[in-house]
């Protein structure tokens, strides 16, 4: 269970060591990809708690969502429409939904354990 957290720390350390920098104009793509990744992570946690977790769905969701969000932002910039806003709103809403579900499940578990 602690392995993913370790992985996160490991990734952060690697990121600092690599010292990559994204140019300003591509920074929005990365941020939206990051948002998609976070959404997938929370979705994974939720499905894990709901015991409907599937690795393939999780993996494909992570990569597909990330790439699709970045691609949407790119197409939006290409067309002159701020499409990345749509992705941000959608992922944001899903993120909060997932968080709410996770919180509820954990609360229920805690209350049922107490009783």
């Amino acid at each position, binding site marked *: *269970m602690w*392995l*993913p*957290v*370790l*992985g*996160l*720390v*490991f*990734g*952060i*350390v*690697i*990121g*600092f060591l*690599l*010292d*990559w*920098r*994204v*140019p*300003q*104009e591509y*920074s929005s793509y*990365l*941020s939206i*990809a*990051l948002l998609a*990744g*976070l959404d*997938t*992570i929370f979705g*994974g946690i939720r499905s894990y708690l709901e015991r409907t*977790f599937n*690795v393939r769905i*999780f*993996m494909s969701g*992570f990569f597909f969502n990330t790439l699709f969000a970045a691609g949407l932002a790119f197409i939006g910039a290409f067309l002159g429409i701020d499409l990345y806003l749509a992705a941000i709103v959608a992922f944001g809403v899903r993120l909060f939904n997932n968080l709410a579900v996770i919180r509820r499940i954990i609360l229920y578990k805690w209350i049922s354990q107490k009783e």
Partner: protein
Amino acid sequence: MLPKNRKIAFILTIISAIIGIMLTVQLRSNLHPIKAESRSVSELRTTLQKELEKHKSLLADISKYNQLFYQYETALDTDESVSVMKEELSRTRRLAGLVSVEGKGAVIRIVDAPPLPEQAAVDGDLMSGDNQTSYQIDDEDLRWVANSLFANGAKAVSLNGHRLISTTAIRSVGQSIQVDTKFVQPPYEFKALGEPDVLISGLKLEGIEENFQLANKKIVFEESDRLVVPAYSEQRTIRFMKPVKSKGDQ
């Protein structure tokens, strides 16, 4: 079940690592944005184009100001010719009588003379009383005086404050005498700029005193070192004449 669980944990770890990398990259690029590489080639090209245009316009400015500078420099040279022209203009105006002038000269007054008894006795049969009173100074006498003054080198002459210029007419209109369009009344007073001695002796030589004695007038000569002759006051219009253009003139 365990290997599957491990597999899941492994995948989750990898994905977490990827997300961590993305997070840090995003963080770093937001904290220290790269500005130099954020411009595309076309952007740089348009910027270069703009700078080139600016350079060109600055060059044009330089040449413009150089030209202006050159003009001012030449203007400094031609300044002399302008002053010469101004001098010439003022000289011409002085000659034409359009400005008041002063200098040494003579004042000639034609005043009523008290009848001298002995002279009356001498010329008694020549000039009867009727004759004397009937003889009036006319325009011709004044013209003669003015001409004599000019002939004796007067540079500026005025009659009762009216400047006499080259086109001035002195003529009888009815009972009075007009200088140009202004009436003049006796006593008549000429002011002439010139050598006073020459002017006075010239008039005397012409017999001005004798001439005006006939009209029972006396001539009073007065020399002056500082005499002011006024400017010609009437409007001069140029009519009936045009400068003849010779071929060399522009």
